[in-house]
């Protein structure tokens, strides 16, 4: 019997190697979770049941012939989901927007191709805010996903379907996209681990563009270990994405077996992230996590990112401006439907971006935001000349009620206060579970490093998850 709710990729690979279960049984177990619980959770927009089962049966035949296939294909027979913003050949890809209802891409995103080549099996496409525009999945043109820890609450967003799916055992990992927190905040709301990579670390080819200078692709999984396994496959130069980075430090797996037992790093907590408006339970959990880092051998100090208060305004001006340009492609000619099918939040963001770029306002808004971006990046450069890592909360608030913020777009944007600051600087950030509220709602923290420091983040995260067991807690799906 497979305990799919708890099973990690690491354990699944071991089980498949030892033939404790078959690839078909593993994929079937994931699909059964969807059948049992997704009517309530609404994490998936499309489920590829038959295709996934066919692939799994095929995988079993290969395993019978080639026992060591896992050395050649490191994610062989591992079921996963992808946020619906990824183009998947022959599988509907809507971006969770009505404008792309029924859209069937003619090609795969590079990330999907790489996972395919590594043997992973796509079981379905997950719900999100349309094109990633939101923090709760409530802006989706199809459905609102629910938090597996409390179905009255949002799962976070925009990749809420992905996080809810991983937390519920519907696939062992999900591939998602983070422009201003869209991986970290839902991972935090659903008590799973998620990685926002350095800008350019993973190819964006075939991913519906939100804001091209901020978009990053990364995994959501049940442990840091699992994220390492997935990033090892998807990272790296892709000639189809001119902004993708040459891999210079890609031995991520070394982070899983560190040479030294202690972890003598300088760790900073930015004071601006613990200030006004933060839920005291989250603050407490992050300070407690700081103590864990001290126990690991780190030296802890309070630091400052002085321009944080300007980050939300600058982020939204830059992001919306890029949105207005990127979404001009939806003209209903080559694919998709007419622009009247855009959801209200999509129209709102296009309107704001068009305004910020329009004659007379360009200098006052867009250009000014780009200058503030320079200051935000300098803040991180300065702080990383003094410390190796930062730890901070992911969200100032606990998972909120469905409907609580839907009538106030600005309040919804402010929920991203601690995540949008990271993307303009292009630095990586690893979101991890770090506790539960008194009402048993997940609390999350992020470990932020300088550009291209994923390996160090993985080392810190693995050590943290050795010292703590928050990531091994799972929701009670029987009482949703």
């Amino acid at each position, binding site marked *: 019997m497979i305990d799919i709710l708890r099973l990690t990729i690491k354990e699944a690979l071991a089980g498949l190697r030892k033939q404790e279960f078959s690839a078909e049984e593993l994929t079937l177990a994931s699909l059964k979770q969807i059948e049992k619980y997704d009517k309530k959770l609404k994490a998936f927009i499309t489920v590829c049941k038959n295709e996934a089962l066919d692939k799994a049966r095929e995988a079993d035949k290969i395993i019978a012939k080639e026992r060591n296939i896992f050395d050649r294909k490191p994610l062989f027979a591992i079921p996963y989901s992808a946020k619906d913003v990824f183009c998947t050949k022959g599988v509907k890809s809507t971006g969770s927007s009505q404008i792309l209802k029924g859209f069937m891409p*003619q090609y795969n995103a590079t990330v999907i191709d790489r996972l395919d080549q590594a043997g992973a099996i796509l079981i379905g496409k997950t719900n999100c805010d349309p094109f990633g525009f939101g923090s709760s999945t409530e802006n989706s043109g199809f459905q609102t996903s629910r938090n597996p820890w409390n179905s009255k609450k949002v799962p976070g967003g925009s990749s809420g379907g992905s996080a809810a799916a991983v937390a519920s055992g519907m696939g062992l990992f999900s591939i998602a996209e983070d422009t201003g927190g869209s991986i970290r905040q839902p991972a935090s709301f659903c008590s799973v681990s998620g990685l926002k990579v350095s800008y350019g670390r993973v190819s964006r080819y075939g991913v519906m563009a939100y804001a091209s200078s901020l978009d990053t692709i990364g995994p959501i999984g049940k442990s840091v270990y699992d994220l390492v396994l997935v990033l090892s496959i998807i990272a790296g130069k892709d000639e189809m994405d001119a902004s993708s980075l040459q891999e210079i430090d890609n031995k991520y797996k070394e982070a899983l077996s560190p040479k030294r037992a202690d972890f003598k790093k300088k760790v900073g907590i930015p004071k601006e992230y613990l200030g006004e408006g933060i839920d005291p339970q989250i603050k407490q959990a992050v300070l407690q996590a700081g103590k864990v880092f001290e126990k690991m051998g780190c030296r802890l100090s309070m630091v400052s990112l002085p321009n944080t208060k300007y980050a939300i305004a600058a982020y939204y001006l830059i992001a919306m401006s890029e949105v207005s340009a990127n979404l001009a492609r939806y003209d209903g*000619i080559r694919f998709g439907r007419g622009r009247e099918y855009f959801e209200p939040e999509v129209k709102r963001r296009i309107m704001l971006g068009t*305004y910020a770029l329009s004659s007379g306002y360009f200098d006052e*808004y867009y250009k000014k935001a780009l200058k503030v971006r320079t200051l935000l990046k300098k803040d991180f450069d300065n702080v990383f000349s003094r410390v190796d890592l930062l730890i901070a909360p992911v969200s100032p608030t606990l998972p909120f009620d469905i409907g609580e913020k839907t009538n106030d777009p600005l309040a919804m944007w402010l929920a991203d206060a601690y995540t949008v600051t990271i993307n303009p600087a292009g630095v990586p950030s690893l979101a991890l579970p770090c506790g539960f509220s008194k009402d048993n709602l997940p609390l999350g923290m992020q470990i932020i490093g300088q550009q291209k420091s994923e390996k160090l983040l993985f080392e810190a995260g693995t050590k943290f998850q050795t010292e703590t067991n928050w990531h091994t807690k799972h929701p009670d799906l029987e009482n949703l």
Partner: protein
Amino acid sequence: MKKNNILPREEVLHIAKLACLDLSEKEVKDFQLQLGEILAFMDVLKELKLNDVKATSQVSGLEYITRADKIKNSLSADEAKSQAKKTYKSFFQVRAVLE
């Protein structure tokens, strides 16, 4: 410019035209309020003195990335057309743009 954080109606209509969006009467009213409120929030940036600060448009550190000019396989015309509503022979069909 905005008064009491309400964006003038004609400005909303002008932006909608630039963005190729047909807005309903309700959407126009909603956006007057919502965009007005959001833009007022953006005014926080006015506190900063930015004359000597350079703009940053991207952070990858990469410049002038090109790929080899080699012919590779691409989608067939039929595949490329497969998601279009209106096609004619091997073309996408669009409305006339010239009278």
